[in-house]
């Protein structure tokens, strides 16, 4: 006989979990007692939001399920933003929250919050565990649901007395869910139809998204591109799937996408979406998205097909099944396609060379784009780049050269400021041999800056680059462009000294404002053993361009006066 808390820890071991992120409290005291006794690795963040984002960063960096613990009530509700972040980006998480004991449920008891009610819209699935006998089955199901199909977060809310209750523990070997089968393959005829459509196309375009990252099919997608001379655009979540060095890579598409990438979408006659959800940040005005094109949509989630953009061909299956099959079926005809598609690709690449992402250099100050270029030059190709949300995030997407999948960790769907620092910690713990760089802003970093303390306490070696422009950059850009330059509440001009803040929490702090010193300071930071914050002073007024304003077509970009 073991108790529920032991059963949880034992099950985590069976699921090959090697670290948990969390924060203790009343309802999970028994769980933490067993964690202590069983010496299970645990990272104590300084805030539950830090724990859930760290679990998310760990999951994105490794492809494994991230796990976090929180207590009932406020502990659990502090996870909400992180759960929603993971849900929007299809990140596998299992969040185990304490709930008040069975007799107290529904009585507005101390630290009671209805976590199943609260998290239903932002989870793949959730459970309230009221009987200890249900615990092993639910844990088994939760991990299965989180990692299979289209991954996502699962919340397990466990009544306090369940942790203490003793029972005969046995971890199930299989999952038996009548309404959910996990990974599934599709119909080969659908793939065949896609091949036929490609054979008839003159100006095809690959559009690769986060699904390709999650399914780890980047290599397959890249080989198809290379063998057929297929031009390719990527969503923010797809960056890295096809390397920057590929001679048909047009970069990011959408609101802040490359000129040629957006023009390619407008002009192509066949758009092949791979693991994408046609988000409004990609499509611009959706009725005018890829107006000349037939659409092929590869995705594992049936509900994504025809949700935003109607698909002419659908291949609804695990990409790990459909992509290799698609690749195999193209082998025989690849050379013919390459001959036919090359002029179209070359034309687009010429356009891309003529109108690349660019900016005005300045002798007197460090330009944010220049900073990202330098970081890109100074970091190894397998560096895990984490961002927060705002201008720095878009500049990272535009100017960092991603040559591998799963190297960019960013809150794409929800756009969560404060995601970066804890996610970087989780990413580093998942990939201890690789360098982790967080690119953030002076707005975002303050949203979870308490986690510098976690970095120092556990000696987690991450490099944090703050683009310090004294404003909420993206907000002020919109205010500049659409709100008559009325900078309502977007001017920070904070008195906070980030170097001192980092030092106070035990992290090395550096600052640079002169362009000629940038490389040496960055080099010093990257060479340092241990966490470093680099406070980089950049100008306040600088726009992320190109930009497709809301409600416009992708070819109606604001390009600005940057040559």
């Amino acid at each position, binding site marked *: 006989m073991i108790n529920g808390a032991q059963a949880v820890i034992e099950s985590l071991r069976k699921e090959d979990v090697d670290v948990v992120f969390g924060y203790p409290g009343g309802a999970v005291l028994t769980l933490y007692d067993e964690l202590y006794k069983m010496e299970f690795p645990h990272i104590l963040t300084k805030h539950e939001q830090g724990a859930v984002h760290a679990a998310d960063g760990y999951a994105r960096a490794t492809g494994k399920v991230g796990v976090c613990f929180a207590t009932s009530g406020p502990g659990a509700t502090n996870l909400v933003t992180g759960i929603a972040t993971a849900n929007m980006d299809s990140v596998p998480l299992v969040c185990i929250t304490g709930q008040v004991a069975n007799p107290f449920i529904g009585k507005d008891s101390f630290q009671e919050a209805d976590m*199943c*009610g609260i998290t*239903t*819209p932002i989870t*793949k*699935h*959730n*459970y*309230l565990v009221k009987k200890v006998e249900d615990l092993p089955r639910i844990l088994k199901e939760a991990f299965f*649901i989180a990692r299979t199909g289209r991954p996502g977060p699962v919340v397990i809310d466990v009544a306090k007395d369940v942790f203490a209750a003793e029972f005969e523990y046995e971890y199930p070997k299989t999952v038996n*869910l*009548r*309404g*959910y089968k996990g990974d599934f393959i599709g119909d080969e005829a659908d793939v065949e139809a896609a091949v036929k459509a490609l054979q008839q196309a003159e100006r095809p375009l690959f559009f690769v998204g986060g699904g390709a990252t999650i399914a780890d099919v980047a290599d397959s997608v890249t080989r198809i591109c290379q063998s057929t001379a297929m031009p390719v655009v990527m969503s923010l979540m797809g960056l890295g799937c096809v390397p920057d060095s590929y001679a048909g890579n047009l970069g990011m598409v959408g609101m802040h996408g490359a000129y040629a990438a957006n023009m390619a979408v407008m002009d192509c006659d066949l758009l092949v979406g791979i693991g994408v959800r046609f988000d409004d940040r990609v499509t611009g005005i959706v009725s005018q998205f890829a107006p000349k094109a037939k659409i092929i949509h590869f995705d594992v*989630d*049936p*509900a994504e*097909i*025809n*949700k935003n953009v*109607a698909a002419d061909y659908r291949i609804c299956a695990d990409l790990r099944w459909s992509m290799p099959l698609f690749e195999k079926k193209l082998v025989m005809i690849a050379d013919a396609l390459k001959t036919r598609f090359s002029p179209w690709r070359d034309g687009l690449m010429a356009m891309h060379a003529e109108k690349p992402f660019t900016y005005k250099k300045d002798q007197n100050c460090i330009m944010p784009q220049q900073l990202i270029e330098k970081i890109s030059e100074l970091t190894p190709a397998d560096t895990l780049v984490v961002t927060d949300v705002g201008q720095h995030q878009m500049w990272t997407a535009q100017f960092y050269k991603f040559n591998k999948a799963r190297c960019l960790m960013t809150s794409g769907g929800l756009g969560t400021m404060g995601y970066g620092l804890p996610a970087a910690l989780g990413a580093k713990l998942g990939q201890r041999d690789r360098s982790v760089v967080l690119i953030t802003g002076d707005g975002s970093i303050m949203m979870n800056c308490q986690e510098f303390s976690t970095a120092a306490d556990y000696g987690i070696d991450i490099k944090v680059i703050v683009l310090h422009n004294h404003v909420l950059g993206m907000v002020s850009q919109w205010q500049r462009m659409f709100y008559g330059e009325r900078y309502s509440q977007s001017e920070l001009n904070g008195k906070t000294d980030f170097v001192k803040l980092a030092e106070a929490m035990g992290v090395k702090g550096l600052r640079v404002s002169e362009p000629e010193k940038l490389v040496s300071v960055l080099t010093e930071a990257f060479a340092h053993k241990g966490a470093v914050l680099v406070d980089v002073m950049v100008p306040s007024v600088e726009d992320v361009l190109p930009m497709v304003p809301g409600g416009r077509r992708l070819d109606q970009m604001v390009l600005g006066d940057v040559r």
Partner: protein
Amino acid sequence: MKKYVLAVLVDNKPGVLTHVSGLISRRAFNIESIAAGYTEEADVTRINIVVSVDSQQELEQVVNQLSKLIDVIKIVNLSEVDSIKRELVLLKVKATPATRADISNVVNIFRAKIVDVSRENVVIELTGEQSKIDALCEVLSDYEIVEIARTGAIALSRGPVAAKDM
């Protein structure tokens, strides 16, 4: 707007109705009615949903999004097959000695039943398709309806095959 009756078979587990109704509201689907009850299998609940949509694409979204819920086992669109749709209504209508006979006539014409009578009112029960119930309500509105309780539609396909096997 077109209406469809969906039979949604779900695991009979706590929280399943929250998951289904939560999804409907957050995806802003138009639902006319929702009626849940036990089935021939102890661990399966059948939720009958009447959904009102503008297009086939919207209907497909409703079905696909609902299907994504882990505890949804199966969804069958009973409007696509030959099926029987029924709804139950209970109506409390003011009835004086002067109007009672008229009301009773109406009830007979509709093949409804008077299931409770008092000095001031009657309670009428009717089972039928939505249009028939609408018609009864319309006619009885001449007599001051005190209260209406409707179940929302439930449906079964004709023929031997069950929804779970479709």
